[in-house]
């Protein structure tokens, strides 16, 4: 809509006017004052949009912020274990965790797959539920380790040349395990998990095969790629789903599928 008050506004013009975003509101108001049809169209639009109301979010208690903080500080601490770019208070909160190396994760995975898909009658050893729990722990830890690497890269200051040799080593270590987990996810019918692992793998390959030091432009480009694909967020979502499965697996005999 131009400022010409003789032209009928388009439906989009009326929407923008309704939201206070019209380019020439004065011209449009003049037109509306003299055009009953357009005024009726605007009234009708307003009636429709006023029917679209937000669903009231579930109430959160006064202690909600404290609960958010409780969960958050563990994750901040976890992020601080890698490269020392996080403040001391965050590093100090780091839980003592035993991370599986890529090789160990791979051997666990193979044990799991052999046990699950090639059962030997009468074979003794780790039971199915226990094997699944071990695998869930391994995958959960793998995703958490991956998050640390992604966070380090996202948190890097792009103003200076960045030494990523530690992240590169971590990525190399994570890569072999990631490939196996992805294959396992495909094999066990978990396409959502497989897709996220595939996206994670691309980032890990890039970091593992990249230089040990990134210039500001390279750091920014890598960060943009990670952020634009939402890899970190997806890894977190899958990680939280796996933690939920871990809890379920620990609670009862219900079958937990990966």
């Amino acid at each position, binding site marked *: 809509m131009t400022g010409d008050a003789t032209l009928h*506004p388009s439906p*989009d013009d009326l929407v923008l006017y309704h939201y206070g975003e019209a380019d020439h509101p004065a011209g449009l108001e003049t037109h509306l004052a003299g055009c009953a049809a357009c005024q009726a*169209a605007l009234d009708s639009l307003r009636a429709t949009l006023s*029917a679209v109301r937000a669903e009231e979010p579930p109430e959160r208690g006064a202690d909600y*912020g404290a609960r958010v903080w409780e969960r958050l500080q563990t994750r901040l601490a976890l992020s601080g274990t890698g490269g020392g770019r996080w403040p001391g208070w965050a590093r100090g909160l780091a839980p003592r965790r035993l991370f599986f190396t890529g090789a160990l994760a791979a051997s666990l995975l193979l044990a799991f797959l052999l046990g699950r898909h090639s059962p030997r009658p009468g074979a003794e050893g780790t039971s199915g539920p226990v094997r699944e729990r071990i695998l869930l722990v391994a995958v959960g830890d793998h995703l958490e380790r991956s998050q640390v690497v992604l966070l380090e890269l996202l948190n890097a200051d792009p103003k200076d040349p960045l030494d990523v040799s530690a992240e590169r080593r971590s990525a190399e270590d994570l890569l072999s395990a990631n490939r196996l987990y992805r294959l396992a996810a495909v094999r066990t019918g978990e396409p959502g998990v497989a897709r996220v692992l595939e996206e994670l793998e691309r980032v890990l390959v890039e970091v593992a095969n990249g230089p040990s030091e990134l210039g500001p432009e390279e750091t920014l480009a890598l960060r943009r790629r990670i952020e634009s694909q*939402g890899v970190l967020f997806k890894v977190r979502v899958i990680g939280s789903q796996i933690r939920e499965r871990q809890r379920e697996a620990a609670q009862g005999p219900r079958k937990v599928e990966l």
Partner: protein
Amino acid sequence: MQRMEESDADALALARAGDSEGFRVLVERHSRALFRLAYRMTGNEHDAEDVVQEAFLRAYRRLHQYDQRARFSSWLYRIAANCAFDLLRARRRRDEDPWPEGTEAAPADFPATDPAPDRLVMSAEVKQRVTVAMSRMSAQEKAAFVLRHFEGMSIAEIGQALDLEASAAKQSVLRAVRKVRQVLAPALGEVAP
């Protein structure tokens, strides 16, 4: 609000200096508002919780980028909106669209469209139609529409929050409104412009 912003500045200064207490204050103060925004954007309690966590993590990583001329709460809000947008995009790619654009909802999906004397029936129908309209929106359209329609953000602010050009944000809002009208108009007897 002014007092809140001043105390945000104090807490922010502490957080930037590496004091966990400062960041804790900010998290506890703004969590509920962020949850409400995240819930409106995702429509899901569990997703909203994840968005709140992710938003604070991103905010923490970017504390050094925060420009003190803007209100801290607005800055945080934009980060949360961006996190919710990422989640919507991820979900959109994964899930099948139950209502592809251009298809009309089956009559059986709605109560009768005849004017009903009972306002509750009408309200339920409208609510159902709103749900259908929202499900027809792309992630970008939905995010932009929620921020414009429910949260009252300007198109320029939406562009900033979602990392979009203002023109793209505007077009997303307009497409979303068209979808709303397409689905709601039959129930409300809207006059075509």
